[in-house]
């Protein structure tokens, strides 16, 4: 039986694929419509430019009354993204509205890359560099951009070198 939540997700997929916002894509897994893989391109004219960042969205039956869990699978260096990849974004928490769909979620994550909010930092170091040392912030972000191009498995050595860098 197709439940209200599943029907809505099918709709979201149809909307996202028929009228995709620029630099954004997403699709449910073949065997589980409650799990979605998504890709966001780093917005132009930001240090994230050209990055292809992978995300995982986990829905449950309370969608769209409750937001999905959204996580970056690619390593991120951003004031509002935790080390685990989870995001600190109001619309995924207390300002969620059931009128949002997957396209809206991904678009606002893309604009979060463009416009970080250093006042509610999830990554204190990134927030501090963003405020005080833009040059270093850009360098660190560019590292994650280059990592995002690598295939999984390939990035082992790079991550090792960059985490050494980070601490």
């Amino acid at each position, binding site marked *: *039986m*197709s*439940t*209200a939540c599943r*029907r*809505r997700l*099918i*709709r*979201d997929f*149809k909307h996202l*694929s*028929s*009228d*995709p*916002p*620029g*630099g*954004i*894509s*997403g699709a449910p*897994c*073949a065997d589980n*419509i*409650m*799990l979605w*893989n*998504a*890709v966001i*391109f780093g917005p132009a004219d930001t240090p994230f430019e050209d990055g*292809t960042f*992978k995300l*995982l969205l*986990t829905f*449950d*039956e309370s969608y*769209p*009354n*409750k937001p999905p869990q959204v*996580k970056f*699978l690619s390593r991120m260096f951003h004031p509002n993204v935790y080390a685990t990849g989870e995001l*600190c*974004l*109001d*619309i995924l*928490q*207390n*300002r969620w*509205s*059931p*009128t*949002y*769909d997957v396209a*809206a979620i991904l*678009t*606002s994550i893309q604009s979060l890359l463009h*416009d970080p909010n250093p006042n*509610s*930092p999830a990554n204190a170091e990134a927030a501090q560099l963003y405020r005080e040392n833009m040059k270093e912030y850009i360098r660190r972000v560019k590292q994650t951009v280059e990592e995002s191009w690598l295939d*999984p*498995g390939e990035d082992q050595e790079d991550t090792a070198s960059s985490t050494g860098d980070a601490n």
Partner: protein
Amino acid sequence: MDPHELADVTDPSDFPLEVLKKLDSTFRCTICKEFFEAPVLLTQCGHTFCSLCIRNQLPNKPECPLCKKATKETHLVRNVMFGEAIDTWCKAREDIESIPSTSKRKLDDVICIYNSTSEAEEDISSKPKKRKTKEEVSCPICFRHVLMSSINSHIDNGCKGYLAREDPKLGGSDKLKSKAAWNSIFKQDKRKIYNSPQDSEIPDHDSKLPKVSYGTLTLSGLKTLLSDFGLSTTGDKDALIARHERWIAIYNANLDRAHPKSLGELKTRLEEVEETVNRPAPKRISDEKDWTKKNQDQFKSLIEQAGNGAKRKRGDDESNNQNIPESSSERSERT
């Protein structure tokens, strides 16, 4: 995902024309994105949602999901005329949809095609043109005149009724009509008797159920509330409360329909909802590296798609100001 499911879902993007896309989306609830079912107006702000969609949402947050204006269930009012407009659009849509969507057409062409296809439908066009379905044929069994559109029903019925013109032997058309009318009344009554009387009962428009303060209720009091409607009383107190809250939402939303459904149908709906809510949540992905690796192919095609979208968007500089949440300084205080 089943491709049939995807094809089954209608969407504003089914139309090649921008105006029709817009028109189609105005008839859709912004929560479920389906055509409004029992639309209700939020009298504080004027936005409209499906009755059940907004009733399910208000306990989470007592505000309009679109403009965030504070609201509560007592502010919901049936949007009767809008409901009628939606019904009409849904009927019209089927006709418009048969237009091939390969090439962009001018609205005039679409309307022209729409007019010609809708003639088969009664009430819409009053043109005196002869319709195909109104053609008379002679029944191969009894040789009387029957409408082409009702020949199958006529034969299925043992060559009784469904005649295009009255046969003098059978008496005047008034007589037949009144016989048919009586038949339909008796048939309905028979159907009613076979159902259990309570389940077939259709609730009255003005009989909305009030909210219950569950804190003051005992377990047996809760059970009585549920069994009054013949609902299941299994489960602990929390389960019973959840069931009763869901029932109130389904019951009250039903009263906002133009033609409310019977109690039996509502019960089936409640059971379906409970079944999905009690489904185990999907397991969380623990090994993300492994997941990314396993889904490498999908990610590759997603990157390609996102790239194509980006190029296209740069080409036509069309701003997309749909329902995209504004990223503001109000971003969560949580750290």
